[in-house]
């Protein structure tokens, strides 16, 4: 099973296995990884599952679609080129080791 590495707000890392087809957001919720709120449950309506994808994986993750890109303009923390909504990144074998950094805050 592929793994996701979450870098928490305090800088520590949590490595968890996330089944293929499951989102990086759900992987965090199901493993009690703090800092990802996902208020809308993953339907791309709330921008509270914001993460920064680490540079090594930037090219491996498919780019955001129009809705996600638009919603990203409203994240609570700073929007960076590496910003993504983790509910929109589904795990694949090729993404094994995907490392994402959790932002300072998710709510306004």
């Amino acid at each position: 099973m592929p793994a996701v590495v979450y870098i928490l707000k305090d800088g520590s890392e949590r490595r968890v296995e996330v089944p293929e087809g499951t989102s990086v957001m759900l992987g965090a919720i199901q493993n009690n990884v703090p800092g990802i709120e996902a208020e809308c449950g993953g339907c791309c309506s709330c921008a509270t599952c914001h993460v920064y994808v680490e540079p090594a994986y930037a090219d491996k993750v498919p780019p955001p679609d129009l809705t996600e890109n638009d919603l990203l303009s409203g994240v609570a923390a700073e929007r960076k080129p590496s910003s993504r909504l983790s509910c929109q990144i589904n795990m694949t074998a090729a993404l094994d080791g995907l490392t994402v950094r959790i932002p300072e805050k998710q709510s306004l």
Partner: protein
Amino acid sequence: MSHGLVVVGGSYAAAQIAASAREQGYAEPIRIVSEEPRGPYQRPPLSKGYLAGKVLPAALPLRSEAFYRDSKVELILGARAESIDLSGRSVVLSDGRRLAFDRLALATGARPRPLPVPGGGLEGVLFLRSLADADALRTRLAEATDVVIVGAGFIGLEFASVAVAAGKKVTVVEMQDRVLARAVAPGLAAFIADVHRAKGLDIRLGATVKELRGNRRVESVICGDGTSIRADLVLLAIGVIPNVELAQAAGLACQDGIIVDRFATTSDPRIVSAGDCTRHPSAYADQPLRLESVQNALDQAKTAAATISGVAKPYDTVPWFWSDQYDLKLQMVGLAAGHDSAVTRGTPSDGRFSVFYYRRGSLIAIDSVNKPGEHMLGRKLLTARLSPTPEQAADSGFDLQGLMAKA
């Protein structure tokens, strides 16, 4: 010894009160009592992706087992809180158990409003609130041919989207003269109704239901004007009633909702309440209001948890809501009721636009269709009490984000 916090309820507000209390450093025992057989789970997908099979059961729990274990939050499931013994500081459960508490949180939610007409108890007449309701509805939908939905609110129209997409003949009967009458303004309601009609939904406005007919199983819906509509599945989606009985019997102040202040405290200072069941003051409304939304449940729960933890954190988040119907992503922020003017930004015929609502020249709400960025910006503008002029809002070339930057 400390009895800690007892939370009555099993949904968003209950889970969030427990989680936020721990984040605030509340170290006493926390117990959540819910009559449902499972821990708190997502409800919005139940009328959308879950029914359509796109959201799987494993994705529904709001918190993992690891959360309850690691946070030392005990779930007491399948147990109904029957009464509150205020002098004895305990909650009495349906199985006779008594749970002593120092602090109590009521997150009892709401239940679907029944339709007081003959035939409401026929087989095939369903409600949608819980996961069990959704499972029953999904099973029934698979074998149905003629679906009638009573009520053109969010639940009604979301279910209509799923049923139409599943190839059923679907009719919505709505008493008001427009869809989503409680939630959106007339112009947007007409736009949404047109999208549904174009997909094949039969919408009957200004129509009432006087009887559900059938022999054991529902067969038809009889409207107030005598029209009969064939039906082998009827969803009653005419709103909810807040679950106030437990609070009321204990003597807490209630008025179509458990009355709380800005700190989510009820008329008893030891008891807080959050979510669909409360009536609360709002900086965005003239009157105390009751909101049925995930946002309200989560944000009011955070306030309730802060209060329990001895931190004053008034609940003043701008209300927001969302709904997904077909490929329409509807997002609403603020409360449009009482607006005296409205302007549209973007082009409705493109299916991507927002409506800005004003009252005495100030922005009070924004409804967005497939414009999530404008919705998020609207949340920031309304929270900061910033108001673009109607001319600026209507001008797609005007940089609204710039208003935030200047503030």
